[in-house]
């Protein structure tokens, strides 16, 4: 189930049925696609073209009906659900447009919870590393503040710290600057790039902002990768 590890992500001819299988059902067809180790890729395209679905497939949060997806050489389809969860926690980090922080917990606890389920570091190191990462993203004075009391920029910084807490090989960012003003968006974008360089992890970043996308070494238009077919067309 493991092949060479020069690729952070390998997608081979994936198909996914979207909908309930009735007349309205759509087949999501993803062409071959690869991301090298440590490579930073911007995934662009209009709304509804399938960027987020692609990200969810790579994360193993959705399972393709056919085709193979490998992350760091590991075929996700061959992992049991529990193995897949553990693998995701150890190998991938997520940054969402709406931050998706846990409001009940402080910034520090949010990062530590990420580490708890990532299982990449011994329990005794969680607090120290989480503190270090939050300092790295400029939140040394906000360690014990709950997300509701943080600015949107600060929230995304916590999300970045949480995403890299398990030292992932792949960072998946879904519109990470979409909810931010241009200045903050630029800062956050730079921060994401910096931490990816520091942590030596590949970046697959979904964005509508072409200016930001062009700052990354590689841009992929999702419309060229993904095709949508009506189920009736495929089965005809």
């Amino acid at each position: 189930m493991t092949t060479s590890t020069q690729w952070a992500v390998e997608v081979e001819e994936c198909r996914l049925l979207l909908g309930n299988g009735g007349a309205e059902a759509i087949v999501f067809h993803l062409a071959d696609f690869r991301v090298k180790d440590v490579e930073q890729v911007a995934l662009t395209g209009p709304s509804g073209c399938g960027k987020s679905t692609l990200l969810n497939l790579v994360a193993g949060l959705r399972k393709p009906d056919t085709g193979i997806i490998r992350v760091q050489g590991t075929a996700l389809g061959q992992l049991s659900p529990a193995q897949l969860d553990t693998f995701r926690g150890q190998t991938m980090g997520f940054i969402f447009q709406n931050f998706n922080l846990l409001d009940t917990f402080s910034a520090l606890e949010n990062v530590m919870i990420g580490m708890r389920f990532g299982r990449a570091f011994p329990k005794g190191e969680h607090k120290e590393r989480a503190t270090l990462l939050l300092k790295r993203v400029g939140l040394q004075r906000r360690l014990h503040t709950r997300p509701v009391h943080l600015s949107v920029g600060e929230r995304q910084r916590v999300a970045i710290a949480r995403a890299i807490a398990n030292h992932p090989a792949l960072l998946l960012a879904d519109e990470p600057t979409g909810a931010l003003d241009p200045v903050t968006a630029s800062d956050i974008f730079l921060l994401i790039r910096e931490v990816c360089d520091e942590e030596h992890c590949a970046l697959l970043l979904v964005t509508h902002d072409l200016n930001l996308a062009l700052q990354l070494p590689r841009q992929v238009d999702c419309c060229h990768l993904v095709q949508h077919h009506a189920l009736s067309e495929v089965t005809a």
Partner: protein
Amino acid sequence: MSLWRMAWRYLWGRALVTILTVTGIVLGAALIVTVLTLQRESKTGFLNEGGQFDLVVGAKGSPLQLVLSSIYHLDSPTGNIPYARFAALAQDTRIASAVALGLGDNYHGYRIVGTDTNLFSLPDRRDPKKLLFNLAEGTLFQKDFEAVVGAQVASQTGLKRGDTFVGTHGLTVTPGTSEHHAFPYTVVGVLAPSGSSSDNAIYVTLPSVWRIHEKEAETHRQRAGVAPNAPPSTKDLEVTAVLLRLKTIGLRLLMSQEIQKQTEAMAAIPVNEMLRLYQQVLRPMQLLLLAVAALVVIVSALSITATLYQAAERRRRDLAVLRALGAHPREIFTLVVLEALLVTVLGLATGWLLGHGGLALAMPYFRDSLGISLSPWMSDQVEIFSLGLVALGGLLAGILPAAQAYRREAVTDLSSN
């Protein structure tokens, strides 16, 4: 961060709802603890007290009434029997001790019991090294119209050694009844609190009771054709009941049947009567209370289910994020179940404390007013089993929302934000 800690933090994240849910469990558990403890202790207390005597002999009537009136100082006596009956029983070689009781008057509702000092020399059957009655101060009565008062009588009426009082005719306070002003009693001793019916009684000599009621007896004698002012003979004297301790407990039934054959008396076995009373009257009431407690617990369990279900629904995004971070579905399941478990355990522990603490606080009331001596902090197997069932119920209440959270696809809730 452990799942326990996360569950705890989530509970405190919705503190008001958590407190209300816990309160339901607290009330249910406290009610269960209280009812079971009172059930156990009242049963033990009743049977222990009843077990001090093997037989009670009195006028024919209800055996339960005889036992209640002569041992527990409740209910009306069944009537009187001739003193000669007592004298005969006292001579019976199968009897270890026979104590006669004469009732008829009260002081502020506390019964004045005519007896003799033999009653005070009886050992306590629960602990034969101790006496059944113990003086807190003073002495036993030596002569007529001296009185030894129970602890509760002393505390409630203020009677103390050296005080005098007069009895009122009858066994309960009834307005307009005559007081025996010509025959005042003097308190010579106060009994130590025992948690039994003796706390609520006043003990005097049998002749005191007889002398007060001599006039009444004389009327009876006149009606019977005896010359007025003739001195009463022992044939005219009566007692209300005789308490018997037998040399062999196995003789209870035989002697009871023997006495039953006598026309003027009957014998009752106190333990049997009290068990019957317990089974017929007290137990159904206690079962009813337990049913109420069970209902409270069931409602609380449903409340836990509803609360956790709603909480899990509101936290769908959180749970999906945890899945994205690498949490296994079984960890999500455990997290939700732990919340139910924490609510239940917190409710049970607080309910246990509240129930037993409440009983400890109310102990003086139960001892003084109801004559029930409690061990308020004791938990027996039935209680532990019942609370265990509540814990299981709480756990089961968490399983439905936990299973719901377990089954959800993380991607649905992540993409909906």
